[in-house]
């Protein structure tokens, strides 16, 4: 077996570069190092996913009986024709679109403002202020999702929530505007991600460019629109793409704690639908079919993310 053709490109990195004869040893060592993680991932992710594909062609509902019976494509036909599933996917899409839009807008605005503050601060006060601000912006990230959801539930409570107290209304936000309230809570929780990423990206723009812009007489807004924004478009795209995928696939905690999917099915996002079908309705066959669809969607989105990352190096 000839290994020569493998010694090229990426193979010229690492200890292999200087020790060509150990190529086989290199590969084996790599295998040994990565095997535990791969085995772990295989046992608890790949194998279960394979299992769920299998189960999606069966019926298993502990509420009725402990048997697993073959069901062909019935779970999938149910899925394709069910109003609830279509509605759930729609709700999740709307949620993703609006939440990501808000996070990106708010994160971008704050990141730009913060970056300008940091760049222009000449006194200790400016530096201290930016430190304090950064620390406070981290708070939503450092708060567990459950706690954040509960905090928002109280914030928007019709009887003792400050929002209604200040507005002098008694709107039950999570009951009357459920999706909007969930989006608000989620945007609050995830905005720090966007903020810190864009902050770093903006700071990495060369200061000379700012000097040049200033000499040209640009004011703050023009500077932002014609210098900052174009420079970080690649980062914006990648971050938005990642956030969208995360929002679509991982929204669960906030909805579970605040609205439980309701009222009715108004906020029943797709991950919640999967969970309820399995653990509330105890229909594992249908839940498996839903899970398979979710995994396929994740795979497709992940692949597109890979493509985006290759196109716009961040």
């Amino acid at each position, binding site marked *: *077996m000839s290994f020569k053709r493998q010694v090229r490109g990426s193979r010229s990195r690492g200890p292999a570069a200087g020790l060509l004869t150990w190529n086989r040893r290199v590969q084996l060592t790599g295998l040994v190092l990565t095997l535990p993680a791969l085995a*772990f991932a*295989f*046992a608890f992710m790949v194998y279960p996913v394979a299992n769920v594909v299998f189960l999606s062609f069966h019926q298993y509902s502990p509420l009725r009986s402990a048997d697993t019976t073959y069901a062909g494509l019935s779970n999938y036909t149910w899925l394709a024709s069910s109003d609830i599933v279509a509605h759930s996917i729609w709700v999740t899409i709307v949620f993703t679109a609006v939440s990501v839009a808000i996070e990106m807008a708010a994160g971008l605005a704050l990141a730009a403002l913060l970056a300008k503050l940091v760049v222009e601060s000449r006194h200790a006060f400016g530096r201290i202020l930016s430190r304090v601000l950064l620390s406070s912006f981290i708070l939503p990230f450092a708060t567990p999702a459950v706690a954040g959801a509960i905090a928002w539930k109280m914030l928007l409570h019709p009887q003792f929530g400050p929002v209604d107290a200040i507005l002098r209304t008694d709107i039950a936000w999570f009951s009357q505007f459920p999706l909007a309230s969930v989006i608000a809570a989620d945007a609050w929780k995830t905005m720090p991600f966007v903020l810190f990423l864009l902050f770093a990206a903006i700071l990495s723009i060369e200061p000379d460019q700012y000097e040049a812009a200033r000499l040209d007489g640009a004011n703050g807004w023009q500077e932002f629109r014609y210098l900052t924004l174009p420079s970080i478009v690649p980062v914006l795209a990648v971050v938005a793409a990642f956030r969208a995928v995360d929002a679509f696939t991982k929204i669960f905690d906030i909805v579970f704690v605040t609205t439980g999917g309701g009222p009715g099915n108004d906020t029943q996002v797709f991950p919640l639908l999967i969970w309820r079908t399995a*653990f509330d309705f105890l*229909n594992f066959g249908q839940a498996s079919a839903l899970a398979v669809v979710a995994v396929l969607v994740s795979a497709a989105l992940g692949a597109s993310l890979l493509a985006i990352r290759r196109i716009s190096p961040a």
Partner: protein
Amino acid sequence: MRLGIGIRLLSLLPAIALLATACSSGGNTPTSSSAKVVRVLAVAGPETDALIKYAPEFEKSTGITASIEQVARPLWGQRKVRELIENAGLYDVVMTGGGDDNLWVKYKAHVKDLSKLLPAADVDQLILKDKFTYNGKLVGIPQYYNFPMLFYRKDLFNNPTEQANFKAKYGHDLAPPTSYDEMYQQAEFFNRPPNLYGFFIGGVDWSVYLDDTYFVYGLGGNYGDPTSNQLTLNSPQQKQAMNWLVKFSKFNPPGWQTENFFDGDQLVQNGKVAMYQNWFYIWKTFQQKMPDKIGMAPLAGKGAHLGAFVATIPDAAPEPDNGAKFIQWMMGATYQKEQAIETGDLPIRKDVLQDPDVRKALVGIEQFEKVLPNLQYNQTTWVGELSAGVSEAIAKALKGDLSPDAACDWLQNQKFSGRKAIE
């Protein structure tokens, strides 16, 4: 190439190993249990609070420690299934819902026959024993009885001017309704926005489903028929019930769509609502706070929704004898009397029902006794999913997307087409 295959083969090993363990082990290792503990799975609520409060008496008389776990309602369903179908074997006593779980417990759950574990003297005292017996097997013992009643503004009903006006308009006396038509007239009569509204139905899905059951059982209908194993979601009674629900909702105060029956309690106390249907737990509060203002009457109609926590002993219970002792205490005359006076719920024993102290404490007990023989429960084995669907249909009818009749047809023919009463 070779290594590529090697990777794949090597990574199969852990999975194979896991499969091997999965096949060989099986089920849970039983929790170590001393003979001196009884583990009870209960749901959060005032009745469980009473159980916990008086449990020390049980512990003193039997020497067995009572470990009563209160679980939040949303998580209760999964736990019941784990214990009673998947035989998890973590509890000796599992509380189920009398109104929703009864058929499922009878047909599907793996529970012991309590008539073999409890003294006959106690079992004979059980009111409505037949409701919990299936093919001769006693599947559960209720902890208490609770059911909805009608609550109305007694002061308005007793007001001579109101009575005169009502008689003039409708041609008969103003008195607690004995039919839904009368109830409708009265709601209409007292509907005087914005200060007084004729009726209250909580619009939140789990609350509005309950109101639906009041009408459905009241009209003599149900959601399924075990003998034919069909769903009866668009029977004439169901359609009538749906129609009534929509009609009565017209007399609701604004904001009702996102409220539940607890809010209704508040509204009635604040004088905003003239009449509503609710579990009679609230009667005690009304009695204490405003005995002259609010009256109670049986629901207009034939049947009422049975509310109870029903104690069962799983087949896989680690200490079934301890469980039996616990249930024996729970259904004993001493605790039943204490509970009735404490919570205002009805006792399950014939003798305690006749006890003068109990009858004194439960004001209006004669009214309760009228309803007691007509208690109904859901005749399907999958109420969790069913009630969610029913709430969906109700929402459509209330919003006007579908007519009430069409909503019932949608429920039977589309939403749950092909489903059976017992699954």
